[in-house]
């Protein structure tokens, strides 16, 4: 009896979050699945078109290019950012002077709004007047057109994205490192294991649950790349928005969804793209959960 009452209280407490989630997340998600089978401009009634949207997607050069761009972005940004975050977390988990200062410094980009990050980096990377190229010039290194050379733009976005996410992964990994019991290290030390041996035989294996979580989040985040593309390759010329030539090398899947849905008002088609993205992320995640048995060690 008492337990039942407690359960009611529990539901009451989670009610605001639950209502919010269903209203603003679950409902639109289901709605867009339904809309993906329709043609809808947001004004008139949606027309049911069956699988037409999905059929059109297969031949849509812009969408295929956006998949290519997103995969390229993900394949570099995920491993590099996790690698750097792992190194940083291990270093900052030592007893060093002023480590809380370093931790804060690494974390600052995470709490900075991505629009601000994009704008500041756009200025830093300006080919002619930007400080980055100025420093490269002093060192007699090549000064690339970071944001106007189509072969460089995505790489620039990757760099900025890594800079702004490493801190977040680092914090999760530090938490993981601190969960590792000191007794393992004491025992290893007594047996005469070197620091490197300890790192590879104790630290990393016991960090795998955290690494798994970080990998999952990183992958989902990178597949949803949007804001940096929107802000950094928006371009400055013309009055009709971003320069299409530049955008071709950076447009991500989510940018294409936004473009179709909120610029061109092809809501049904945009929904179909969103459903494809959703399915891809779902499959990725399930595969990872299946694979985790092979490499994740719980204590």
């Amino acid at each position, binding site marked *: 009896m008492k337990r039942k009452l407690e359960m009611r209280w529990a539901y009451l407490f989670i009610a605001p979050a639950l209502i919010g989630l269903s209203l603003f997340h679950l409902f639109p998600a289901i709605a867009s699945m339904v809309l993906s089978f329709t043609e809808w401009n947001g004004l008139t009634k949606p027309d049911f078109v069956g699988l037409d949207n999905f059929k059109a997607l297969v031949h849509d050069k812009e969408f295929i290019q956006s998949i290519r761009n997103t995969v390229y972005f993900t394949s570099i940004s995920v491993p590099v950012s996790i690698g750097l975050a792992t190194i940083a977390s291990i270093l900052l988990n030592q007893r060093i002077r002023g480590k809380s200062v370093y931790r804060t410094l690494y974390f600052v980009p995470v709490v900075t709004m991505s629009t601000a990050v994009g704008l500041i980096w756009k200025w830093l990377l300006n080919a002619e007047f930007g400080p980055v190229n100025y420093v490269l010039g002093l060192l007699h290194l090549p000064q690339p057109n970071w944001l*106007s050379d189509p072969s460089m733009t995505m790489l620039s976005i990757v760099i900025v994205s890594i800079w702004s996410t490493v801190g977040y992964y680092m914090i999760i990994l530090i938490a993981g490192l601190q969960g590792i019991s000191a007794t393992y290290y004491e025992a290893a030390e007594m047996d005469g294991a070197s620091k490197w041996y300890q790192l590879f035989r104790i630290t990393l294996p016991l960090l795998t649950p955290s690494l798994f979580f970080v990998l999952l989040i990183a992958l989902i985040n990178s597949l949803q790349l949007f804001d940096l593309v929107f802000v950094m390759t928006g371009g400055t010329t013309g009055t009709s928005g971003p*320069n299409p030539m530049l955008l071709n090398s950076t447009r991500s899947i989510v940018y294409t969804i936004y473009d179709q849905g*909120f610029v061109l*008002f092809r809501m049904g088609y945009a929904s179909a793209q969103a459903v494809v993205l959703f399915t891809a992320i779902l499959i990725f995640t399930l595969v990872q959960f299946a694979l985790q048995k092979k490499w994740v060690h719980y204590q």
Partner: protein
Amino acid sequence: MKKTLAIVFLVSMLSVILAGCGGTGSSNDEEQKNQSESASTQAIQENTGSKEKFVLNLAIWDEKLKDTVNQVIEIYKQDHPEADVQVTVTPVKDYWTKTQASLVGGKGPDLFMMNGPNFNKFASLGLLSDLQPLIEKDGVDTSVYPQGINELYKLDGHAYGIPFYLGSLGLYYNKELFDKAGVPYPDESWTWETLKEKAALLTNKEAKQYGYIAVNADQVGYYPLIHQAGGSVISADKKTSGLDSEGTINAIQFMKDLMDQGISPSAQQQLETEALQIFGSGNAAMYPGGSFDAFNLQKLLGDKLGVTVLPKGEQSGFYVHGSSWVINKQSKHQQEAWELLNLLTGKAGQELLAKNAINFPAYTDYVDLWAQSIPSLDMKAFVVSLPDAVAYPVSQNTSEWQKVMAASITEALTGAVPVKEAMTTAAQQMNEILSKDK
């Protein structure tokens, strides 16, 4: 099982929705809050008496116009003390997306500014109020505005917008740089050849100083050159693209040559630093700009700024554009919005627009007042060149083919694709888009 459910939930939360409303929606609202500025109403509220209060929302893309609009609102409030009018400025890059999205969502400003390339899309989606009955009822005389601009905002013979200002073009120059190089100031006798020759003299690569800017943008950049070279953007019947015509290709080649010779900043540089900024910071001697640039350029360059008519090629002139005010069809305050619109486009608004040196007024009677509004800058070049101007290229889906055109021209100018090939592709793609027009 539970775990799988959790994953599905996590993924659905993070993927589908973030794509849409999440990020942009909320940041736009924030922006609106920050940028909107309610003209103070407190003082007048005391004597509102019987009339019911109402709120009118105005949207514009031009920051420098805001003060003038607020001055007109003050006049409006003398007759409507119960009104609370808010002006929101959105940078032009996001203006169209944001406005269309909010209108489609059943909200949006009551009264907002419109341009030619976007008018047909908005009007044919049924988002704008038909002003024709109101014009006839109140006997508004639209013949005080240039005929071409009136036509730009008509759909099936009905006016949906009233002209506000024109975008006349001219050649801005930096007197200081001309004096230093000992080159006489440009005048109406200049041709493309003179321009090329003198611009070379004004170029100083070490000082990062350019003689001229071949602007990689439509209105002030390649459009006037295309017209001057005898080319076209779109045929008179709006059915075929003119981008692969000989004149058009020559115009783009002319721009590319200037860039390749270092006389003009390259297209790549312009992708990062706006052409107007390069000229405004004194790093270029000449810049083809609009009447709408005078206000800001004068602030940046002061007495050093001069302006004359654009040099001629095969012919002189350019495509003239004009912006208008339109009313949201779903606005609950049609009559109130209409009255404010009349003030803005009528004598009171046009006089302020001219006096404040904002831009070329659409109301012909106030053009001379505007031309003299900046003491150090004689702007009659914008007025005398107008007879040579022709209608702005638009069709039903202008913004769609503008995208294609901008991409191809940028590819041509950066050298990624040969000029002729790029323009042929652009014309093909544009024709495909035009064939979908009704």
